[in-house]
């Protein structure tokens, strides 16, 4: 009896994360999916059918029969939406590449720094998290605006004759994204690079590689898991990013997060914005699943 209880207890620890996912991911997601197949209405809540739990199965069935995919068709037909998706993906890809370009040397430098410095350097990377994300993005407005710190500095240096327009352009969005998401790139890369055995580089050196060749033949391929993890951590939230494009971007900065927000709060069209969210999720999840499957297969082939 005691054994049975113990085995149930042991299994229940495995169930904790599943339960967590069920409660905090799957349930809300199903609610969003349900919303996306509803119709907008001037009502409280602003959609039909409202689906009252107390209607019982016959009432639920009645509600389900009212579901339609008209919102999805609407999104497909209106160029605003797919343009937003494409623009979001483009901005996310460029921003992720920039973050990698800046984050990799940073992580590399940290991993090769004297052991005693590393905790401090790591702390410095994490430190910005101690301030609110929103406040940090607002601070960038102060830096990037026409009479902001950056322009004043460049004018003082004499590099430019008149202030540059950076705020409310895509450049400001890139700056904001790279700044905000840099730690998510640096941390997995650092974790990977720090683990790498320095004697591998010496071995490459010994076998005829210059330092640069040794980097590209040994360090880089071995750091790919870190690169991929970092890129996912930056890319995924960036695609749906709302705060940065709306605070730093211009009226022509088209990102799906903003479109979704406008649909939800300006148009009060919850069903359409839910459909936008569902499609966004599919766009993000499908490539990741395909990638993981190909990785798994490659691993199997090796063994």
């Amino acid at each position: 009896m005691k054994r049975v209880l113990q085995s149930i207890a042991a299994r229940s620890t495995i169930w904790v994360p599943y339960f967590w996912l069920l409660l905090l991911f799957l349930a809300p997601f199903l609610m969003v999916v349900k919303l996306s197949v509803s119709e907008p209405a001037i009502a409280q809540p602003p959609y039909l059918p409202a689906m009252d739990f107390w209607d019982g199965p016959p009432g639920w069935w009645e509600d389900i029969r009212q579901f339609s995919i008209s919102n999805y068709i609407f999104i497909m037909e209106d160029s605003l939406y797919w343009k937003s998706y494409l623009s979001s993906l483009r901005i996310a890809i460029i921003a992720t590449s920039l973050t990698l370009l800046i984050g990799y040397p940073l992580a590399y430098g940290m991993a090769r720094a004297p052991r005693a410095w590393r905790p401090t350097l790591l702390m410095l990377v994490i430190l910005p998290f101690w301030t609110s994300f929103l406040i940090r993005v607002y601070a960038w407005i102060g830096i990037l605006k026409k009479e902001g710190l950056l322009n004043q500095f460049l004018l003082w240096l004499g590099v430019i004759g008149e202030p540059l327009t950076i705020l409310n352009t895509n450049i400001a969005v890139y700056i904001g994204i790279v700044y905000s998401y840099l730690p998510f790139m640096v941390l997995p890369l650092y974790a990977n690079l720090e683990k790498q055995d320095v004697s591998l580089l010496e071995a490459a050196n010994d076998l005829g590689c210059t330092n640069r060749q040794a980097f590209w033949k040994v360090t880089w391929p071995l750091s790919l898991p870190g690169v991929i993890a970092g890129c996912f951590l930056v890319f995924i939230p960036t695609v749906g990013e709302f705060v940065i494009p709306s605070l730093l971007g211009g009226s022509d900065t088209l990102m799906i997060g903003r479109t979704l927000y406008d649909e939800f709060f300006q148009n009060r069209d919850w069903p359409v914005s839910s459909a936008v969210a569902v499609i966004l999720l599919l766009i993000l999840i499908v490539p990741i699943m395909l990638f993981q499957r190909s990785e798994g297969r490659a691993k199997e082939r090796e063994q």
Partner: protein
Amino acid sequence: MNVKSSQQRRAYQPWEDAEAKPFIEFRNVTKRYGAVTAVDNLSLSIYEREFFALLGPSGCGKTTLMRMLAGFEQITEGAVYLAGEDLSSTPPYQRPVNMMFQSYALFPHMNVEKNIAFGLKQEGMPKAEIADRVAEMLSLVKMQDFASRKPDQLSGGQRQRVALARSLAKQPKLLLLDEPLGALDRKLREETQFELVDLQESLGITFMIVTHDQEEAMTVADRIAVMEHGKIVQVDPPIQMYERPNNRYVADFLGNINLVEATIDKISNDQVTLATPSGNVLKVNHTGSGSTGDKVWMAARPEKLLIGLQKPGEENCLPGEVWDIAYLGDLTIYKVKLDSGDFAKVSVLNRTVAETRDITWEDQVWLSFEPDAALVLAS
């Protein structure tokens, strides 16, 4: 490839030949890390086709010395010459030297074949030749069946073989081995030591091995350099090193040795007469250094001492009491407390099958030795 016969090998002693040119030469080499001197004004010559061992405790500078040859350490003062050329300004990737790393440093993202081919590809060797050389190397280390495995799918011994094959693939003039067998278990290590010797003989490449294991050094090397605090204490073939150590440090580092304090009483042509403080007379056929009246150490290896219950003669006898006995199967080691209060170890080969031995704990015994079985070392 040049195959030396064992006959030739025994005669191969270039260090005895005044005409022979050293292949590797350290000239007054010093290496400092800040205030720490790792290698201290060291000079050393190593000859072609030699199997040379650097032996010493950790931190004695042996690894630093080897890494200088590979090019991983900058020399603070002095210079290293390889085949007459100053290596100082040659980067590691241009030296005709390859190294087998202590951790093996196999590239985890490449399979065995690619690991071995790495240096050859870097050299720009044609593909067909690379394939031939890799196959040759794989058969050399008997790893043909594992060509497509990744390092993490190999055992420690297999990894060691791949690392060896990779470092030999470029046919270096000099192979450096940094504690190459440290990660293997004892049996495998002993087998591999002999394989290394055979390999070195058949390839005719100069090998330099760094080790802290004296048995390993004695098994594989033509000559051994014993190091301490960044200096070389003695360079000699294993036999001389063991039988004629220059000083107490070497005597103690290589195997066991018993030391008895004594005063030089008389020096004749080839014999020294010593007197111990308790009045025992010791005659030793090794003059060592020192003159009459000097305080010296009489040194004798445990296997060169005899132990008995009766006093065998008047000279070269030391009385004592059996303090401890260690039965090792092939040997029995007696720890004897001498009348001076020092302990001496005597090892006796167990020549007969017997469950009990004559000598037991707390027996009063006599240790004795032949005049040519001991040494005189300066105090």
